[in-house]
Every structure is written in C-alpha cells, then in structure tokens.
C-alpha cells in the first residue's frame, strides 16, 4: 500500500509539473503580444513597456519560467491586473464556497443515488421491468440535461413561481441559515445530474453481483431480501461505484463553474469567468491551474480508496 502510494505520488508530481509547464506556455501562445492583449487598447508606448516590466514579461523566457515554478511552489501568484489584489488571497476566499457547494452536492447525490440504483437493480432482478425501465429511462434523460438549463428550469419553478428558495444573492459565512438557503438551489441543480449518473452505475453494478453464488447462499440461509441486497450485493458492487464517484468529480467541477455563474455565487468559477472577461490572464492561468490540482488530488484519493477497498487491485 505504502510503496504503491509513493509510486502514485511520484507520477502525480511529474504530471503536475507538466500541467504547470503547459499552463505557463499556453498563456505565452496568445497570438501577438501578450502584454498588449492583457492591457487591451488602454496602453501604448512607454506605459505598455512599464506594464510589461510589471508583469515580468520583459525577462528571458527561461527566467520567467523559473520564476513561475517558484511562485507555484510558494503559492504566491502575484496580484491580478485589474484590481491588484493578491490572486492567492482571492482564491482562498472563494475556495470554501466552491468546496461547500461541491461537497454538499456529492453528499446529497450519494445518499439518493445509491439506494435508488440498488432498488432499480432489485426491481430488475425481480422481473418488475416497468418500474425499473421508468427509473433507468428517467436517469438517462436527466443525465443528459445541460446543467444551465436544469438550473433555469428549477429557478423558474422553485424560486420564481413557488417562491421556495432565493434565486441568487451574496453568500457569506456569517449567517449559516441564510447561506444554506442560498446554496440550496445550486446544490440541487448539480445533484440532479450526479444522481442520474451514479444511480445508473449503481444499478448495473448491483445487478451484476445479484446472480453471484454468495448472494444465492445468503438467500438460501433465509436472510431477508433487504439484507441480501443492501448488505451482501451492494457491498460487493462498491468498486465501480467508487470509481465513478471519483471520476464524476470532474463533471462536478465543470458544473460548479456554470452554477456559480448563474446564481452569482462568489466561488472559484465566478473568479475564472470574471478573469476571462476582464482579460486578466494571470488570474485565469492560476485559477485553471488550481482546478487541475484539485482534480488530480481527487483522482489520487479515489485510487487510494479503491486500493484500500480491494487489495487485489494491481496497477
């Protein structure tokens, strides 16, 4: 386990090094003069040169690269162009909000999807085709709904027509109950598609083990169907489910950007869209880098959990 973890960590460092390099050079691929592109049409002549010096774009490329690597290691990304606030500070302020939305979503999705998928598998196994079909078809369609469209539909019904939840507004940690209300709708929007994906995978995974010998043995010992399905079948179907939970974090991160944008939640995604619209390349560069870090870290944790749950797995 430990040697495996070390090996994976080494791989991770190599990949992250590549990611940092890619992000660094991608920004320098902007057609024309990067400094001019960032400044827009506001600066010219001496002012532009001054701006270039401030960004460090006048130094030789290798020096800029070394500086950037150091800044990533020190978690000091300098300041944004437009507001001259420190980028690291902005990200640290936005991060808890995004993590909270993502965390609540995953929790809600797992709590709903796993029982739902298991029940669907149970129904399929019992030959109750209609109910099972209804669940799988709904899951498939819901899975394909674009997140921003689901968001607008729910906003239309839940906040504008029924006035159950606020559609948008500031999120602050000072008033927890108000904050929970504000992020309720975004969490539901994101959870809907996660539930659909997870429920489908759970159904397939449980269905596969329901015909195994040990399930038959459990039945023949007179255990109730509930115990058989939830204790014996579901436990052994956990491997593919864990993999998909890990993989779907990628989708979840994609979704948070859209949901934060729609509901004007001041998370990392909003920071990213703001950065692009104001051509604040240092900000964009580091936020994207940050997402990659989070994604890679989550994949690593998934692998570790997988290995822990099933020690037979060899990589």
């Amino acid at each position, binding site marked *: 386990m430990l040697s495996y973890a070390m090996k994976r960590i080494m791989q991770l460092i190599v990949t992250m090094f590549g990611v940092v390099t890619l992000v660094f050079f991608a920004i320098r691929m902007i057609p024309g003069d990067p400094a001019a592109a960032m400044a827009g049409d506001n600066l010219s002549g001496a002012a532009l040169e001054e701006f270039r010096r401030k960004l460090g774009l006048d130094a030789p490329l290798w020096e800029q690269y070394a500086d950037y690597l150091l800044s990533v290691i020190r978690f000091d990304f300098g300041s944004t162009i437009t507001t001259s606030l420190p980028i690291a500070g902005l990200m640290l302020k936005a991060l808890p909000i995004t993590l909270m939305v993502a965390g609540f979503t995953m929790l809600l999705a797992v709590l709903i999807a796993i029982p739902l998928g298991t029940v669907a598998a149970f129904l399929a196994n019992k030959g109750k085709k209609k109910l099972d079909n209804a669940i799988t078809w709904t899951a498939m369609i819901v899975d394909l709904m*674009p997140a921003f*469209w689901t968001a*607008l539909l729910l906003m239309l019904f839940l906040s504008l027509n029924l006035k159950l939840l606020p559609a948008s507004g500031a999120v602050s940690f000072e008033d927890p109950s108000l904050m929970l209300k504000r992020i309720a709708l975004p969490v539901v929007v994101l959870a809907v598609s996660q539930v659909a994906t997870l429920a489908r995978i759970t159904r397939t995974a449980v269905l596969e083990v329901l015909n195994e010998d040990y399930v038959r043995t459990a039945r023949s010992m007179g255990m109730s169907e509930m115990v058989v399905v939830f204790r014996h079948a579901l436990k052994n179907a956990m491997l593919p489910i864990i993999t998909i939970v890990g993989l779907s974090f990628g989708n979840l991160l994609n979704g948070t950007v859209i949901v934060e944008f729609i509901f004007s939640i001041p998370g990392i995604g909003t920071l990213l869209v703001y950065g*692009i619209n104001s051509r604040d390349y240092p900000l964009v560069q580091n936020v*994207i880098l940050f*997402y990659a870090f989070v994604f890679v870290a989550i994949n690593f944790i998934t692998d570790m959990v997988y290995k822990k749950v099933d020690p037979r797995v060899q990589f």
Partner: protein
Amino acid sequence: MKQEAVARAVGQPAVASRPRIQLPYLSFLYVNKNAKWAMVILLPILLITFLAPFLPLQAPLESNIRASLNAPSLEHPFGTDKLGRDVFSRTLSGIKVSLFVGMTVALISLAFGIALGTASGFFGKTVDRVIMGVVDIFLAFPSLLLAIGLVAILGAGTVPVICAISLADVPRFIRLQRSLVLSLKSRPFIDAARTVQAPRLWLMTKHIVPNTIAPLLVAASITAANAILIEASLSFLGLGILPPEPSLGNIIKDGQVYLQQAWWISTLPGAVILLIAISLHFLSDGIREALDPRARK
C-alpha cells in the same frame, strides 16, 4: 503482390480488391431499435433545420420591437425575445452551429485519436511514454475547464471553440485507442501475421485499426453529444459563440434575464439541446449493437 501473399498466408481471403475497412451497413439505422429511436428524433430536427430558409419564418437576426416578448404562437412557435426576434428561427440557426461543432469535434478526435493512439499502443517504449505523458497532462484538467482555458487564449468564435473542445477530447480518444490496440496486439491473428513477416504498416492498417473502428464510432457519437453540450455551456458563459450570431447557449443566456416574463426564450432551445443529446446517445447504443454482436440482447 506482397500484400496478397501475406493475406493468403494468414488464412484470410485476399482483400486487396475490396474496400479496406468494411463500413457498417447503414441498414442498422432502421433495423436496430436504439438507432431507430435516434433517427426518429434526429431526422425531423435535421429536416426542419435545413429547410429553414424555405419556411415562412422571420430571419434569425431580424428584429421587430413591436413584437417584443410575444408568447409562442403559430407565427412564432418558440415566441419572440426582447428585441422581437423569432426564437424558433434563431434556435434553428443555433442547431446548425451545434451540429457543425459536434460533427467536427468528433471527426477531429477520431482522426488524431486513431493516429496517435495506434502509434502509442503499437510502438510502445519511448513513443508510448511521450504520447501518454502529454495525454496525462491534458487529462489532469476537467474537460469544460480545459475548454474554458483554451477559449480564453484562442478567443471567442466557432473555430476557436471547435479547437478548444477538440483539444480537450483528443486525449480521451488517444487513451481509448491505445487500450484497444494493446488488447489486440497480443491476439493470435496478429501473431500469425507477424510470423509471416507482415510489414508493420500492413499490420496496423489491415489488422489493428479496422478492429478498433466499432468502439471508436460508439465513442465518437457520445463525443459529438458532449461537444454540443460544451459548446452550449461556453456560449452560455459568454465565452463561446458571441451574439448576435445565434447559438443555443447564447439564446438561453439572453433569455435568463426575462425568465419570469418570457419563459420560452430559455426553456425551449434548452429542450432542443436535450433532444439532440438523447438522440446521439441512442445512436451510439445502436452503433454498438450493430457492430458488436455480443452486445445484442
């Protein structure tokens, strides 16, 4: 001559005169249940989209302030927006963009995926390590976020959007193709061809690539659906295809402000995206069942 000799030696009929890659028979489109459903949804959408210039519709960009925010009616099936533009005709125009993006991204991903994935799986060693190293770097980003980052650099518009989405999808195809090639490489028929000294190029183009086409087409169909969703997301965020040029994403964005007064602007084009995505998923299931007899129930 040499090719035919090899073909005879490995116990295959000489195929030199026949088409290299046997394309799936298109009859599966109306035989297979899933593919049939895909066609039932997709064909009417295609038909209306491409007949749009001949239909009595207001032009997508033509505005009429007097008919602002009109509810859906016979004249305007999807209603009108704030500027009095016909949402239905804008949607049709957006579908054309969406389908173009979806098709192009799928084709680009297929082409690069086959070329680089086959090279990586077939040659192994350094080639494999270099290609997979780069692929791993790209796969470290969630797909939409990579596309957002690339659009930030490449700028808005149809071509940058296609490039950005393709760059996010190609690594996935390379990885898929590589795993397919690796599993084929150790099969007896490849060994048989090798023992009679079949050239590498022959092995790749005649034995390996044709056997990977089925799973690749299944993946391509899903990639097209995803590309359409990502393009819509980018345009919705204001980073993809910019107004006034209509795209499904930016029509929905425009309608967000008027959600309460005019629900139709955002909701109806969104339903169209969903229909296209569903049909492409049916199509991929259909292709899988048509090309892989084991998948048939």
